[in-house]
C-alpha cells in the first residue's frame, strides 16, 4: 500500500469575511497549500462544501475554483483546467473530500491531489441560514417540523443529561477547553478564554443548550496537497506526515430512526476501522480533533471512539482529560467551538491543524511529542462519520 503524504497545507482565518467571497477565500487557501508543498502541481481538485447552493446561489464549485485558482494541466499544448469536482456529505464534507483525494492518490490514477474546503456562511444570516442548515436533516420528516441542527443536538443533549445524571453545567468543559486552545491559534474565530461563570450564567438558546454549547458558523477555507511518498521532492521542507487511515461509515439518516439516539454508531465504526487498517492502536493516539459542532457531540464522539465509557464522555471535559496536558488532548487549535465551524471546510481544517501538530509547529498549543492524530468530521448527528488517522514520520 502506497504511503499517502499530506505534502502541503493552507488555511484562512475563520470568521465573518464580509469582503471575501467563496472563490477568494478558497483561492487563498489553495495558493497557501501549493506554496507550502514546495510548488507541487495538482492534477485533480476535490472541493468540499456543504451549503453554497443555498447560501451563495452557487453550485458547480469544482470547475469554478479550478478556473479561478488557475489550476491548469501540465501538458504544454492542452492547457485546460484540471479534473475538479465537489464532494458533499453535510458537515462531514471536508472529511469525505479528503477521502476522495486519498483514494485517487492511493489508486495511482492521480499523483498529486488538491483537496480544498470552503464555506461562505455570512452571505445570508438569520432564519435563511438556519433554513439552509436544516436541509442537512430529513426534509420530509424532520425539517418540515421546524427542526434545526441545533435542536437535533438539543434533543440528544436533554436525553443524555437525563439518562446520565449530568448537571446543568456538565458539558461546560468542552467549550472552555476549546476557547482556552483557540487563544493560541491565530486563525481561530475566538481567541479568548471563557470562564465557568459565563457558561453558568448564559441564557438557553435551544434548551438545554446555551450559546457556549453551539459552535459558531463562520466563513473559511482550508486546503491540503496529497501525494505519494516517493513523489516528494528531495528537498521537501517539512517533517513528513502521512494519512495512515481513511474511513467512512454511515448510520440512519434521521435522528428519530436511530435504534439508540445516544450512541454515534457511525463514529464508532469509522474509528474502529481506522485502528484496524492502520494497525495503530487507540492508546497510541496523541490528540483527537473531534467534531464539536455542539458540546454534546464532543461527549458522544469521545465515547464512540473508545476514549470514554458510554455516558461518561462529559466527565473527560469536567476532569480536564481533553486539555492540552490531559490524557487525550482534543480541539487542540480551538475545535469548531473556538476556531469556528466553517461547514464543509471543517474536515480540511482538522487535517491542516493535525498536520501542524505532527510537524511540531503548533507553538503554544503544541502537544508534546505528538506522533499520531485522530481527526473526525460528522454529517448530521453522526449520520455519517469520516475518520482519518495521521502519523508523523520522523
Amino acid at each position, binding site marked *: 500500500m502506497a504511503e499517502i503524504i499530506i505534502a502541503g497545507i493552507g488555511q484562512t482565518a475563520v470568521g465573518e469575511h464580509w469582503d471575501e467571497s467563496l472563490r477568494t477565500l478558497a483561492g487563498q487557501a489553495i495558493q497557501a497549500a501549493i506554496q507550502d508543498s514546495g510548488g507541487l502541481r495538482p492534477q485533480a481538485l476535490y472541493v468540499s462544501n456543504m451549503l453554497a447552493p443555498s447560501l451563495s446561489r452557487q453550485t458547480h464549485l469544482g470547475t469554478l475554483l479550478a478556473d479561478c485558482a488557475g489550476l491548469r494541466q501540465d501538458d504544454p499544448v492542452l492547457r485546460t483546467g484540471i479534473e475538479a469536482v465537489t464532494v458533499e456529505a453535510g458537515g462531514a464534507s471536508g472529511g469525505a473530500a479528503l477521502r476522495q483525494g486519498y483514494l485517487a492518490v492511493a489508486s495511482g490514477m492521480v499523483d498529486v491531489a488538491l483537496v480544498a474546503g470552503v464555506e461562505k456562511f455570512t452571505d445570508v444570516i*438569520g*432564519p*435563511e441560514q*438556519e*433554513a439552509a*442548515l*436544516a436541509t442537512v436533516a*430529513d426534509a*420530509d*420528516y*424532520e*425539517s*418540515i*417540523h*421546524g*427542526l*434545526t441542527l*441545533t*435542536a437535533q443536538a*438539543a*434533543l*440528544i443533549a*436533554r*436525553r443524555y443529561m*437525563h439518562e446520565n445524571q449530568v448537571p446543568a453545567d456538565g458539558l461546560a468543559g468542552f467549550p472552555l477547553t476549546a476557547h482556552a486552545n483557540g487563544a493560541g491559534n491565530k486563525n481561530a474565530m475566538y481567541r479568548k478564554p471563557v470562564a465557568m461563570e459565563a457558561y453558568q450564567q448564559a441564557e438557553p*438558546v*435551544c*434548551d*438545554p*443548550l446555551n450559546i457556549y454549547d453551539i459552535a459558531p458558523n463562520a466563513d473559511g477555507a482550508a486546503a491540503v496537497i496529497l501525494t505519494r511518498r516517493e513523489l516528494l521532492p528531495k528537498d521537501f521542507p517539512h517533517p513528513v506526515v502521512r494519512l495512515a487511515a481513511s474511513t467512512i461509515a454511515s448510520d*440512519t439518516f*434521521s*435522528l*428519530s*430512526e*436511530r435504534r439508540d*439516539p445516544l450512541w454515534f454508531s457511525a463514529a464508532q465504526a469509522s474509528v474502529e476501522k481506522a485502528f484496524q487498517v492502520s494497525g495503530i492502536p487507540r492508546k497510541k493516539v496523541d490528540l483527537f480533533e473531534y467534531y464539536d459542532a455542539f458540546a454534546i457531540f464532543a461527549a458522544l464522539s469521545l465515547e464512540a471512539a473508545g476514549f470514554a465509557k458510554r455516558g461518561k464522555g462529559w466527565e473527560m471535559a469536567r476532569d480536564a482529560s481533553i486539555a492540552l496536558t490531559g490524557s487525550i488532548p482534543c480541539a487542540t487549535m480551538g475545535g469548531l467551538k473556538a476556531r469556528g465551524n466553517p461547514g464543509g471546510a471543517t474536515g480540511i481544517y482538522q487535517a491542516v491543524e493535525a498536520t501542524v501538530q505532527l510537524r511540531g509547529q503548533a507553538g503554544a498549543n503544541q502537544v508534546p511529542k505528538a506522533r499520531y492524530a485522530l481527526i473526525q468530521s460528522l454529517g448530521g448527528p453522526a449520520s455519517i462519520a469520516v475518520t482519518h488517522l495521521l502519523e508523523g514520520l520522523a
Partner: protein
Amino acid sequence: MEIPRHWRLNQQRFGLIGEVCQHCQTKIFPPRDICPACGKEAKTSYAFSGRGEVFSFSTIYEPPSGFDETAPYTVALVKLVEGPMVTAQLTDLGESLPEIGMPVEMVTRRLREDGDERGMLIYGYKFRPVITA
C-alpha cells in the same frame, strides 16, 4: 411552491401511515418499503395509533425561515407505542411544561406557510398531552 412534494406525503402527514414488515413484524415509520430491522421487503401499509411518549424535547427560539411566526415552538422525539420514533412539534401544552416520558397523542395542525399570504398552507401531525375523560 412545492405542491407535489407535500401532496404525496398526505397519508403520512394526516394518517401517520407507515408500514409493517411481514417477515419480522417490525412497524416502520416513515415507510421505505424495506424493513430497517431485517432488510427484507416491507410494503404492507400500517396505520399507527398516534399514541406515544416524549423521548426528548427542546424549544426553538431562532427558527428557520417559514417558521418565524410559530416561534418559539417545542419540538420532540416522540416514541410511538408501536415502536418507531418520530420528530414532531408538541402543541396544546398550555401552561404545562413538557417532560421526558409524558404521554402524548397525534393531532393535525398547520406546520408552516409556504411563502406569502398566497402561498400553500402545509398541515401535518403534531402531538399534544393526552386528553382523558
